[in-house]
């Protein structure tokens, strides 16, 4: 992965994505008394993935709170806390368990600012591990970003690297509005990166170019980023130069970055895990249509999960975009 760290000397440490999330929470809890962590098993257990490991020991069970098994309850009470002076960081244990809380997010968290013309607001972060590929049980592997990018009034971020994980977490907590923070669990421990030990932010709404290229723009996020980078390298060996864009924020999307790249390459492949129909890939097709139509040398390709529920683990490798499928997509747009 390319490092985002500038050349000035800042103290860093080499950590994984999940450690960066943990570090991000520790950083904000230290700095801001109003921040709280709530969720199932986030306290004593430190989270089923250890995302909150050690935090209850430091901040007490009054700030790192084990809740009942009740997603609507977690989000609904967090709304009440947020409206009344606190900044809850609510964990949904897996994104597939966010559905019982969908109503609270859709009809309240995302609407209260508008309904009251800003008199009340809901500064809260909802953390949710997502994605397939770790042989988890049913419902543990959903990628539900499109259900939230379609929801006016909430921002959606999705870091792919340890650096972005910490920086975006801090930005999400700083944000005055609800932010859904999606964690690619497949990448929780898959690699390390140098991450500043201090407070820093990664701007919400800004994607990043992971690889420079000339022929095709590959647009993706989350757990797909390292995979797509690898495929881009393979493609290079076949003489195709790919530009890899990691969106990082899924709402509001960095349309400028997409347009700039596609105007240069004239070709785009979008890669995501969620089912094809209704997936965020379609929005990106629209963005390209709106901004870069005349530059397009080929129809845009989407390489995505199929229109099927994330399958049982014995089939999940077939469900997820594979290097072969991505390569085929790249070939398709270059050979058009």
């Amino acid at each position, binding site marked *: 992965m390319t490092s985002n760290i500038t050349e000035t000397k800042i103290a860093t440490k080499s950590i994984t994505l999940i450690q960066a999330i943990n570090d991000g929470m520790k950083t904000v809890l230290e700095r801001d008394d109003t921040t709280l962590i709530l969720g199932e098993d986030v306290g004593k257990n430190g989270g089923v993935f250890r995302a909150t490991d050690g935090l209850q020991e430091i901040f007490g069970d*009054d700030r790192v709170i084990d*809740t*009942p098994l*009740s997603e*609507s*309850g977690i*989000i*609904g*009470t*967090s*709304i*009440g*806390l*947020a*409206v*009344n*002076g*606190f900044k809850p960081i609510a964990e949904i244990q897996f994104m597939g368990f966010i559905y*019982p809380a969908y*109503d*609270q997010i859709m*009809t*309240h968290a995302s609407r*209260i*600012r*508008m*309904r*009251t*013309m*800003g*008199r*009340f*607001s809901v500064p809260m972060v909802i953390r949710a591990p997502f994605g397939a590929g770790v042989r988890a049980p049913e419902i543990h592997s959903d990628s539900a970003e499109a259900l939230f990018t379609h929801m*006016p*009034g909430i*921002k959606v971020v999705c870091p792919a690297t340890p650096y972005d994980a910490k920086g975006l977490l801090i930005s999400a907590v700083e944000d*005055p*509005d609800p932010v859904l923070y999606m964690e690619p669990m497949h990448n929780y421990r898959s690699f390390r990166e140098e991450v500043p030990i201090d407070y820093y932010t990664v701007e919400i*709404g800004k994607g990043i170019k992971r690889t420079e290229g000339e022929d095709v723009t590959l647009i993706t996020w989350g757990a797909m980023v390292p995979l797509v980078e690898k495929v881009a390298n393979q493609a290079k060996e076949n003489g195709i130069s790919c530009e890899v864009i990691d969106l990082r924020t899924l*709402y*509001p*999307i960095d*349309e*400028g970055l997409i347009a700039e790249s596609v105007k240069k390459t004239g070709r785009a492949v979008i890669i995501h895990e969620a089912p094809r129909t209704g997936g965020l890939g379609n929005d990106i097709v629209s963005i390209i249509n709106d901004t870069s139509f005349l530059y397009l040398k080929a129809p845009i390709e989407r390489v995505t999960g199929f229109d099927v529920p994330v399958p049982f683990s014995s089939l999940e490798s077939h469900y997820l975009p594979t290097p072969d499928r991505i390569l085929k997509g790249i070939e398709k747009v270059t050979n058009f």
Partner: protein
Amino acid sequence: MVESFPMKKVIDEQGNLVTASDRDLIDQELVQTAYYHMYRIRTFDKKAKSLQRQGRIGTYPPFEGQEAAQVGSALALGEDDWLFPTYRDHGAMLTFGANMTRTFLYWNGRLEGCIPPDGKRIFPAAVPIATQILHATGASWAEKRKGTKNIAIAYFGDGATSEGDFHEGLNFASVFQTPTIFFNQNNGYAISVPFERQMNSSTIAQKGVAYEIPSVRVDGNDFFAVFFEMQKAVNRARSGKGPTLIEAVTWRTGAHTTADDPTKYRPEGLGQDVVDPILRFERFMKNEGFWNDDFAVNIHKEVENEIEAAVKEMESYPKANVEDLFDHVFAELPNQLVNQKDSYLQLLRGK
């Protein structure tokens, strides 16, 4: 179960004290304040219905018959407490300090209608049933965390008890011992569905047993019964003793909303034996020497003037501002919305 949760009553249908010694708890100020608010919100409610019939506001859900429950509960709150109402609790909101003009604006489809007066902690009415129960739990939990003595009240109906959020809210409040009052107005119906088909339990109060939340069943048409039980619950909450569930048994005199036709589902004559809570209170006032024609005439006039002024203000309110469609979704407009807003405003200006 009815035996475990006997209905608390202070005055009977004829306005007589059920227990003579309760007289000591009642003074002129309380009586006049209660009467004033009940009369005021009743008059507001009538006006709203009539405005709706004339097409001057949109669909409206009347609360006629529930005035004792709404005023009795709201008057027991303190200045800094939180109130989480439903669409039918504008009576409680007005009593607690909501602005009348804005209340009319709300029913006229205006965002401005959701904004409470400065400093007033009144949430906009929850339309999705039972959702506000969790917000009240969370907001009062926040007060507890801050170490204040403030509390929150969640209003909800009998139908609301069937939703999962009712259950999750009471469980959270019980586990975290939040200073929350769950104030149920059991008005007999959820639109067309009667209490007996909404649940197979004889009371709503007994639902507190599931969470070991102290529960009480009161005659919701008896202002004093509501007010005194609320006071107890408020005190308990303020002193760190956690949540209370109050079932106020009342009756929706009219339709569910102005778009509803209760003759479709409500047996003729049903509820006609329910004594109107304001009439009942007037009887009490007369019985106990609190009635005073001058006082009544004065507040009737005062209320009339207030309401006329509010309607006028509502109707002369500046037109809804298109920019408000975009400007309050986020603290700061993201690019996408900037573009959508700009191009729409341009189109509008172009005409």
